[in-house]
């Protein structure tokens, strides 16, 4: 929280300000030595940087990818890339590239930054957990920020799990585009449609280096429910046709040509490996019109995608938006002919996290891994193999985690930590200053069906000033990130023409590890009724004062003593009276 103001004001200026949430920002450096994730990210980005040639001039590209999902929904992925050449060549002036971003990069020496605003949860079981889409664009609910500064090996991480994402977050994001949402693919962003979806994640990813200049990727991932004809939403797909949809169905808009300044403007329709397998099995070829489905327009190009482990994974139908105009808009869609059931490739383990225990004193965090038996499909199940998993978890200070209480259960039996954990790196939390960070490199046996890690914690007490608004809802523990470094979600497109120059596909080709986020947790802490102390204090003080006052009075009274005292005083009084009378008499005698 101390570091919160460091990189932040500039973001605020650009309108990324999350309202009233500052206590939740944890931007903090993590020590570099054994930080797997930072290494991992560095690796990722340098690989990407190497693949992209340094641009000569400022460039803008826009792309959209649409994909049917197994649970009768559709995924839309908008990808906009703006790039600026190294600062030395152009000075301070920009034609297309948003000036605010370049100022930000210069002022804070950002080498990499990723900021995402997400609403809803990515469904790893239904929508996949092994493809570039889920690895790069499935984000935890709320706001998340990753960042690296130049000349600093440290990773900075922040999360705001409670941030509600709305159009007010979209507007500043759109401002970074040269034409906002007035032209090109961005014009499809009809607010009521895109905010009606099941998942909504807008992201801003920034990379800069001396040789590369600045590359800004803006992506928006939405999962939408196509409106079916009858208006009834069917969820199961047993014997039912998938819903037909087109751009107009999904966005209530058609695409009328490209954005004038964009270098390339493409629309992809991707069909999953599941569909491809089904179609191949039936013996027909994957043209845009086959026996399972028909696309409404004939594509300009067809690209086969490959996975790291499989021969063929997905198919891409490419449409060039520059071929379409206002008069002849593009309204590409999919019409199903036969019912089709398929599943997306899951990640090796399905990770979920939950709280254990009850009461306001202590509890446990449990991270459970359920095998999806992916390794059997991939490597044919050698029994003595193992799968690596990395856990990265930030826990706010008021949840006082006892890291030594780590317990690991695999398939119902307790394992010692050394059996499973290869490396562990803990930064304990400091009260009111620093959240705790836990990173672990685990090695699970391939045969594991279910594994669970538990960590005990105490619920802290907060000072009255530290309670956020709506404290009675509970406090959030941001999502943990689980990654599987041995699995890469990268796709390769062997037939692709390097001249095609599609940043979206470039991103898909990047070597990124399979990772997934767990649920956000809500920890109910003891929350005072803020109006109550006054009542309680006045009430109890009155009662106590009355009770103890009278009781003490009664206890310390000694009636015998008092009587004696009384007698004494009477004697003294009498003496005084006597004296007074004598004096009086004398006085009177003197007078008269």
């Amino acid at each position: 929280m101390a570091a919160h103001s460091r990189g932040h004001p500039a973001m605020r200026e650009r309108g990324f300000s999350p309202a009233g949430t500052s206590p939740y920002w944890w931007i903090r450096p993590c020590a570099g030595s054994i930080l797997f994730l930072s290494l991992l990210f560095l690796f990722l980005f340098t690989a990407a940087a190497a693949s992209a040639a340094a641009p000569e001039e400022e460039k803008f590209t826009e792309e959209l990818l649409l994909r049917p999902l197994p649970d009768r929904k559709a995924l839309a992925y908008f990808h906009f890339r703006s790039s600026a050449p190294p600062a030395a060549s152009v000075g301070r002036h920009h034609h297309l590239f948003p000036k605010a971003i370049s100022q930000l990069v210069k002022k804070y020496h950002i080498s990499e930054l990723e900021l995402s605003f997400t609403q809803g949860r990515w469904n790893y079981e239904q929508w996949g957990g092994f493809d570039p889409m889920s690895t790069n664009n499935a984000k935890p609910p709320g706001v998340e920020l990753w960042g690296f500064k130049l000349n600093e090996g440290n990773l900075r991480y922040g999360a705001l799990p409670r941030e509600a994402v709305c159009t007010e977050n979209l507007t500043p994001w759109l401002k970074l585009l040269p034409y906002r949402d007035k032209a090109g693919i961005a014009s499809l962003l009809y607010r009521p449609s895109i905010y009606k979806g099941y998942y909504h994640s807008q992201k801003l990813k920034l990379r800069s280096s001396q040789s590369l200049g600045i590359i800004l990727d803006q992506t928006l991932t939405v999962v939408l429910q196509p409106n079916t004809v009858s208006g009834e939403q069917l969820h199961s797909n047993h014997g039912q046709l998938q819903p037909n949809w087109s751009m107009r169905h999904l966005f209530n808009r058609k695409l009328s040509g490209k954005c004038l300044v964009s270098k390339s403007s493409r629309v992809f329709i991707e069909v999953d490996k599941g569909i491809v397998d089904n179609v191949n099995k039936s013996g027909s070829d994957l043209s845009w019109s086959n026996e399972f489905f028909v696309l409404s327009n004939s594509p300009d190009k067809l690209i086969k995608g490959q996975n790291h482990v499989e021969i063929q994974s997905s198919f891409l139908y490419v449409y060039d938006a520059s071929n379409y105009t206002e008069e002849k808009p593009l309204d590409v869609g999919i019409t199903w002919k036969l019912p089709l059931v398929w599943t997306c490739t899951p990640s090796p383990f399905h990770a979920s996290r939950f709280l254990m225990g009850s009461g306001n004193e202590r509890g446990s965090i449990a991270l459970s891994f359920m095998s999806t038996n992916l390794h059997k499909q991939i490597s044919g199940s050698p029994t003595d193999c193992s799968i690596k998993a990395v856990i990265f978890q930030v826990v706010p200070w008021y949840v006082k985690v006892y890291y030594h209480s780590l317990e690991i259960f695999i398939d119902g039996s307790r394992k010692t930590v050394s059996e499973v954990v290869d490396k562990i790196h803990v930064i304990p939390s400091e009260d009111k200053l620093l959240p705790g960070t836990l990173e672990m490199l685990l090695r699970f046996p391939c045969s594991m069906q279910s594994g669970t890690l538990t960590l005990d914690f105490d619920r802290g007490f907060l000072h009255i000033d530290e309670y956020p608004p709506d404290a009675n809802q509970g406090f959030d523990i941001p999502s943990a990130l689980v990654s599987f470094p041995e699995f890469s979600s990268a796709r390769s497109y062997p037939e692709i023409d390097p001249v095609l120059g599609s940043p979206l596909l470039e991103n898909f080709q990047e070597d990124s590890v399979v990772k997934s986020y767990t649920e956000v947790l809500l920890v109910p802490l003891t929350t005072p009724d803020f109006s109550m102390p006054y009542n309680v204090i006045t009430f109890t003080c009155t009662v106590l004062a009355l009770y103890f006052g009278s009781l003490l009075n009664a206890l310390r009274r000694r009636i015998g003593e008092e009587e004696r005292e009384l007698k004494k005083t009477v004697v003294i009084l009498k003496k005084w009276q006597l004296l007074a009378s004598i004096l009086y008499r004398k006085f009177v005698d003197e007078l008269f």
Partner: protein
Amino acid sequence: MEYIVGLLCRSGSANPLFSTEDAIEANRFMKGIEAVAGDSRGVIGMANFIAQQIEALGAEVCYHKFLPHSKNFHPLKFFTSMTNDIAVQPNGTATNFGINTIGIVRAPRGDGKEAIVLVTPYNSQRVQSNELLSLALGFSVFSLLSQAAWLSKDVVWLSADSQFGEYAAVSAWLNQYHNPVFLSHSVVLHTKMYGANHIYDGNSEKTEVTAFKRAGTMAAALIFKVGETRRYSDRDSVMIYAEASNGQMPNLDLLNVVHYLAVHRQGFRVNIAAFSSLLSSAWLRVIAEILHTLGSVLRKINPDWKLDIAVPDYVEGTANLANSMYNQALGVPTGSHGAFRDYQVDAVSLEFSPTFHVKNENAKSLFLLRGGRLIEGVSRSVNNLLEKFHQSFFLYFLTAPSKFISVGVYMIPFALLLAPLPIVAAALADGSRSMEKTVDKLIDNGKADDIADILQSKGGSWKWLRAAKVLLVIQLWAVLVSLLPYYITQIPDATPMQSALIWAVLSIVVLISLSVLFGSPYSAGVEWKLLKATMITSISIGLGLMSIINFATAQLGALIVIPMCLFSRPLKASGMNFLPRAVLLASNIAFAVLGFPPAALLIMKGVSKGSWSWTIDVGDFWVWMEFLWEWSSATYLYLFLVHLPCWLLCILVLLHPCRQSESKMKQE
């Protein structure tokens, strides 16, 4: 509170979305499950059917298998036994188990941090049409919520297999939810037993269905079931049950929401449980008449005083209040909502009593429509809450579904009852000292020949220590008596009657041996006034402690114990006129009889059942005590650690020989 209630009601009063189509859906579900229930597959068949229906909605589904657990009295795990047992690990051979089926709707745009729980219990072994109707109701609401775009909290629908009792099913599930045991092969076993071949045909991916699934922190829970048809009533009614263990109540706002939506939106008649005997009792009616007349007179004096409560209202309110107090004081939950309260989740049980015949399709559809809208409304209200229910009452007695007595009001009589105790104790102690003073005076006057003798009998100012010793011995006895049942339950095949007798005999044996060991209370020469003072001190401490744990128990207990203590006076004590002494004696004996727990039970039974049949069954007391410790009710502890020693001390005071004072008088 007003604000929150207003907010809730407004949110719940949005036009309900539950339509006739959902009622038709419920009917369809009901037909399906009727067919399955008639089938021979039993437990698994019904669970399968429910799971398939949930799957068809696109919601997540999982099973939870549990074994019945026998509740044993274990003194060392008195308060913890309810939550930490049930490591239900069927070792493959167990055949008698229950299966809960859990459906989870993930809120489309929610973050999954919180969940609303809906529970419909059904007995999979002995299926009744009204239970099927409640399942159908639950399913239709769940199906509606699975399509709702406005959800912000996940919805969990638990169809609890209540063949071992509703509470057992719900509490087993909650235990698995909150305190899972990882040291077992539960998951693997589940997969094997109800894997792809059993429940799902075809898709091999479905093995993971059997893994236990969770949603976030529970915001509130609503348990609803359709009870027996009542044909004599004009309107469908809803019975609300809210009392959880040790007199804990859910937040009042939850009750208010349910009541508001049920009465003002759906036109149900809402009831809470009442003592039926009080409803028809003549003396209560007479009191009500008198109060009504008084009230109307007062109203004539000042029209602003609205004290003239209608007679039926008064009678009903009193019966409800008595039941509410009784249930809270007993400390035993009145339904499966009690299991939620153990995990600090606000929960309330609704029991619908329809007025139609189950075969009447039209009436059934209408009932489903209204019931569905009520549950939808409550879910919606809870869903719209940003925070938990708070800043409202959770310490209250209900006099009607919409009327309550808050802690601020009912604390006053208790405080007034308790307040004189320390004063009386002090006065008694002082009184006994003043008696010593007379002895002192004698010494001062130099009349006494053998001063040493008198000093010995006086014992100095530390005389109260003897009384304290008596008190401690009796407390020790009480602790031993309260622990005895643990050993008695080990005796195999004992009838309640036998157990109770063994208990009584053992208690007396222990008492005698203790008095032999530490000396009889009278032989030490304890003055009765000091004994009474110590007793009053201990009872005020005991009641004060109990009022923190279970206020209703403390309050009801105070009504019996405090007069018993205050009136107690040795039968042989002299120094009073005949009439007051006779009255005091009579009341002493009456209180001594009333204060004896088995006698109190008998009276309680008489009041609750309304049948004043004075057949004494000793076994009943054992059964009642068993009931209390099975539910870990603190009332058991109160009875044996506070009430029983106090009663025994009262008896000791009553039978006090009063020799000492007489001897002193003689000396004088």
